[in-house]
């Protein structure tokens, strides 16, 4: 789920950036540092939408670096248990398959794949129904439900299922091509 929240961060700026574009430099560095990172608490920071406030800088003794407390608005993405996501399959093996929904990685183990889908090893490993009408392989798009998340300080990992109503392949590149 996406959230638009205000976060705060202490930015350390090298003294060489001190000058007329100090503020721009600060914001650029903020974006470079923060976007794409993951915190267990807030989830993945997708984008910074604005800088609310930059506090007074504090010069560090010895290094000359200046620390600015910055308040910024950003969009974060945090997966929750029970959430339905659409994801792209990245890898298929006999234990299940991995999929990505944006920054988050989701693993669907084979006992959470419908019973009528069988693993087919080979050049393109995939899960296929007995009549071959539905196929899950790399690059397939699936709709899945998150049944568990593992949140570390800097990492979120999810376990999903497609063994429920209205879940499963929503667009199969293998079938269309």
């Amino acid at each position, binding site marked *: 789920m996406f959230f638009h929240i205000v976060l705060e961060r202490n930015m350390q700026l090298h003294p060489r950036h001190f000058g007329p574009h100090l503020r721009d430099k600060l914001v650029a560095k903020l974006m470079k540092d923060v976007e794409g990172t993951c915190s267990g608490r807030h989830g993945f920071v997708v984008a910074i939408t604005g800088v609310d406030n930059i506090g007074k800088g504090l010069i560090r003794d010895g290094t000359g670096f200046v620390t600015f407390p910055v308040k910024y608005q950003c969009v974060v993405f945090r997966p929750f248990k029970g959430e339905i996501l659409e994801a792209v399959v990245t*890898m298929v*093996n006999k*234990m*299940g398959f991995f999929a990505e929904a944006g920054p988050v990685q989701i*693993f669907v183990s084979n006992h959470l794949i419908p019973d009528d889908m069988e693993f087919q090893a080979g050049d393109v490993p995939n899960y296929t129904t007995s009549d071959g009408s539905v196929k899950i392989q790399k690059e397939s798009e699936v709709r899945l439900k998150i*049944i568990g998340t593992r949140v570390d300080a800097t990492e979120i990992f999810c*376990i999903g299922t497609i063994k429920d109503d209205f879940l499963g392949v929503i667009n199969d590149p293998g079938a269309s091509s």
Partner: protein
Amino acid sequence: MTGIDQLRNLRNLRGTCCEDVAMTNEVIASLTYELGSKPQLHVVETPSRLLCATASRIVPDVVVASWGFPLAASPWHGAREPLPQTPLMASSRQVHDKPVRSWSPSTGTISQDLIVSLVKLAARAFYDDVTTKGDNQPKTGRSDNRGMAVVVLDALTRRQWVREEDLAKDLKLHSKQLRRTLRYFEEEKLVTRDHRKETAKGARIFSAAVAATGDGQSSGKDGEEKLKLHTHSYCCLDYAQIYDVVRYRLHRMRKKLKDELENRNTVQEYVCPNCNRRYTAFDALQLISPDDESFRCESCRAELVAESDKRAAEEMGDNDDNARRRRREKLKDMLQKMEVQLKPLSDLLNRVKDLPVPEFGSLQAWEARANAAGRAANGDSSANDSSRSSQGQGYGGTPMPFLGETKSRVSEFSCGVILPSSIMLQKLPLCSAIMIGGFNVEVALSGVPVKEEDSKPDVSATTMKVLPPWMIKQGMNLTMEQRGEVKQELRPESSSPANQLDDKKSKVNDKDDEKSIQASEKKHLCDEYLKAYYAALLQRQQDQEEAAKRNQQELDNISSEMPRQVGMKSKREDDDRDDGVEWEEAPTGSLGLSLVSPTGCFPKEVDSLVIVA
């Protein structure tokens, strides 16, 4: 054997045995014949007569004994589709439905039968112990209203749209209690409800609709208009939705149990066969080996094995193995019990799946449809009723003694009714007993006979028929009752002189008339049996006019005759009347007498004369 042949046979047969039958007053047989479809016979009899036995053998469809309850239904009857309704089917349906005033399994198709039993099963399975009590009220033995839900649902299966006050009255429930139950069902999506503010007239429209589906009795009086608005609530089972609701309910029950049983939403665990190190699916990302995309133990690089029976329920702190096993057993047991106990229901669901579901539509739509159907079922008479009463010239408009011109029209499929004795008639709750014959009797007042005939849209294309005298009498009587005006005293004086007058002049050509009428009737019936009635519509109309004249003369004759003569005539007619029905006079009867019934026991409830095809 075609239907016509059957009918002919029947007629011949009746010819032989009619004497016998004519002797009894207690036989009412109505033979209805439906054009272009299966022949149907409704025989209502009190003592079992030869005729009835034979008739039912020849035209074996439904033998009805004792006022409209089917004794035996042939496959025809069962397989009959409910729509489109031909007038006859509607009328025969009215006969059966009369007691319950609605569609009912006994008249319905198989699909109706099934869906009704589905409702009943579901009611008993899911709503048996539902109590619609406020939470704040203490549950005492007296106020325990469990089981009411089932009763209400059952009652609703016998009705279509029903006003809630009426339902409450029928069920002898307090209307508040009923409303609470119905509101619960509305939330459960079993029942659709409609509330509207309406005047007394609006309520009557609904009553008319009910009557049309029920007993075909139409109350066409628009007399007094109360402008006070009352909010009336109506309710009706939504069969299509009930099917979905029940199915979904079963699905949810099953899914919940199964999910829990299979621990479906749990995290897979993996174990290393070498070092017995355990991993969960959360570690999957680290376990993947870069070379062959399989899961490998981090310490010994052995390939991991999925541990199928291990549940992540342990995570939830439920580490007691025994407890978990017990829980599993219980779930499995529950699932099994559910499957067994709800098997009838799910079987029924499967059977109903592809069948059409009765659909009543919204209240307004249903009302309109029911009224229309009722009109069609009644032939054109009820349509006339309304138009007439609106014009203020209905046959009840001026209470007429028995001297009006009587036009009797017997529709092509109707055959006739043996007149019951007046005592018999008493037993009829409503006058629809006469309707079983599929008759359309119209009594035109002497003042406006032609006009009415002309203004009539000849929708049902009925043919002209000579009507037995008793019909007319009854009609008159009924009309007056309907109007609520007691004019019976008038009848004896006024009718007899008029009849005698008529008698004198018409007696001469009585015989000729008789024959010609019979001939023309025969011809007509045959025509109709062979063709669709619309083809012969125009011609028939002309004939009707002719026959009407003859009929009147004849009737006048008969009416003034002594009972002996009446009996003779009825026999004569029987011999070649196409409809295969006996006309029978009450033995004591001069016309006026037999129906007015000296004892004054004519049914009070009879309030409609509209006797219909």
